[in-house]
């Protein structure tokens, strides 16, 4: 019988890929007793091998790219990524800079080339994303809440 790991507590690994540290501070904030994500069974682990979910911050600089790929390869299946902050989602303010690859969208293509499958990615916009937004992102990933934003096309009459 296959156990769905997301029915159990999820363990998270914090992966900084060259962020400005504001998003990381917000993640730490979410882990403190003030927001206390251990209420939901979310626990920080020190190794990607123990993690269900990778909290990825930063626009993925070229310097960190090999390490990011190694870390993601070490995560057991199913692999989940929470892309936190404008940087991780779309490259943020650095999206066309020479030294970054420009967010998780680009990383996804590279991972596919390397044969690393990612089962689900949830994007959390914000610069930085608030701790509540991160908690909400995890809830969207777990399917506990419906996502609120839906792309829309409006016509100016």
């Amino acid at each position, binding site marked *: 019988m296959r156990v769905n790991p997301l029915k159990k507590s999820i363990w998270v690994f914090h992966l900084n890929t060259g962020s400005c540290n504001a998003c990381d501070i917000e993640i730490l904030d979410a882990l403190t007793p003030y927001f206390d994500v251990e209420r939901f069974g979310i626990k920080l682990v020190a190794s990607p091998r123990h993690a269900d979910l990778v909290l990825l911050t930063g626009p993925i600089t070229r310097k960190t790219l090999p390490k990011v790929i190694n870390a993601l390869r070490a995560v057991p299946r199913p692999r989940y990524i929470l892309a936190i902050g404008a940087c991780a989602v779309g490259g943020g303010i650095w999206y066309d800079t020479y030294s970054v690859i420009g967010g998780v969208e680009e990383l996804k293509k590279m991972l596919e080339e390397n044969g690393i499958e990612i089962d689900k990615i949830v994007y959390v916009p914000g610069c930085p994303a608030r701790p509540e937004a991160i908690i909400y992102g995890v809830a969207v990933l777990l399917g506990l809440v419906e*996502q609120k*934003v839906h792309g829309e096309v409006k016509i*100016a009459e």
Partner: protein
Amino acid sequence: MSLKKLLKPFKLISIAHKSGVVTVLYPYQKPLITTEFRGKISIDATKCMGCGACVNACPPNALTLSRRDDTIVLNYFIGRCIFCGRCAEVCPVGAITVTHEFELASASTRDLNESLVHRVEKCSGCGGGLGATSRMLQYVILRSPASENYVHLCPNCRKKKLIQSLAMKMGARTEDYEG
């Protein structure tokens, strides 16, 4: 020394008792949102005229303007927005408001795009594309009423009109142009 060590847990308990529970029960308890808090922006489709001032001001190019045939599309990619509010500051018609919305997590980047489609006006002389929306023309006329005579013409037709009126002044006849 050892007595001090023994008493430490009790000291901690008394400190914890004094400070009480600090945890915010987020989904059940309202998060702290001040009036200055900036979340996602919202573009009013009834006001925006597609001028692109916000696109110039946007630091990460979360707002982009693209021209396709006879439409101008203003696209807002929430994923790259840094919620700085500069667009709301520069918009000449106040079409952009900064909302308090921050629960924006999404399973695909496609859901993070919002577009606003404008129709481009046609030149009243030759019928070609004018590169401006009707709201832009109205805005210009409101600021400078004298422009009403030529604002609906494309640059080429404006040139023609100018040359024509100069020639008329110098004695040419209307038939020369209508033939």
